[in-house]
């Protein structure tokens, strides 16, 4: 349990250094310094003030998660959303289930759609070429009963594959936006794990 101003500020600084921009960090720390200064001037002890403030680790965790989610919102990248999700996971056991599970599910779902798309988009043209060879009477793998129907079917498969790949990208974008909104809401409601208030 934190008992002095120095320790409270030190924990915040250690945990947020390199996460928040320098200016934001100093700004936040100066808020707590002012809080201690005025509190002490009105006769309260540092220990008492620390007790009311609660755990600095919780504050740091929450500030970090909020910042990383905002960053992922501003600059879309796999790396940023990954960091945001990890930081949000730290906010409590609840999030292991309600953030991690949906996140993994979505990543796997998108990967499956994408890979299926790639598979079709590769298999389609190959099948088309074999059908052509078969039509032209050149010996090759005869994969269709009817080469002409096979050729059309191959075109269909190729288009479907490309469609799946495009769909995977649009879905990823959609879930990214949705995910950011969910994380923002989540941070606003979920408490830190070791909050003792």
């Amino acid at each position, binding site marked *: 349990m934190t008992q002095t101003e120095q320790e409270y500020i030190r924990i915040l600084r250690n945990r947020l250094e390199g996460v928040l921009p320098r200016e*934001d960090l100093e*700004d*936040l720390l*100066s*808020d*707590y310094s*002012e*809080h201690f*200064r*005025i*509190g002490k*001037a009105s006769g309260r002890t540092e220990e008492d003030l620390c007790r*009311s*403030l*609660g*755990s*600095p680790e*919780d*504050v740091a965790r*929450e*500030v970090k998660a*909020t910042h990383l989610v905002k960053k992922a919102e501003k600059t879309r990248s796999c790396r940023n959303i990954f960091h945001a999700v990890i930081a949000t996971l730290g906010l409590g056991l609840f999030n292991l289930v309600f953030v991690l599970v949906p996140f993994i599910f979505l990543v796997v779902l998108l990967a499956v759609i994408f890979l299926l798309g790639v598979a079709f988009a590769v298999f389609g043209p190959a099948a088309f070429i074999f059908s052509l060879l078969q039509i032209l009477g050149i010996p090759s793998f005869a994969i269709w009963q009817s080469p002409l129907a096979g050729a059309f079917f191959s075109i269909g498969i190729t288009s479907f594959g490309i469609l799946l790949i495009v769909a995977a990208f649009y879905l990823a974008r959609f879930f990214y936006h949705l995910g950011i909104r969910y994380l923002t809401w989540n941070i*606003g*409601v*979920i*408490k830190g794990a070791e*909050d003792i*208030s």
Partner: protein
Amino acid sequence: MNIQFKKGVLEICVLSVLAHKDCYGYELVGEISKRIDISEGTIYPLLKRLKDEGYVTTYLQESAEGPPRKYYRLTERGRKEEQDQKDEWMRFAASVNALLEGKDDSN
């Protein structure tokens, strides 16, 4: 009281206190923790967020005792947000109360 509740309503509490008067951080924290039992440390990041979102601005003002203090003031946007959130909360609270008390809604 359940901490999820508290965190959810903390924002409107802060906006509401600031709608009555400008406050410095310590004063604002005092106004809120006087009525709601919270970890006071979580209010400063919230104030920062409200500032980033343009609901509050800050200014420094000299105090009789010691160095200047950072005051928080609602912006026009913040005032509107406070009003909207208050209306929403009042409607919500009225519905929940009616439900909990088992009143007939059909009056």
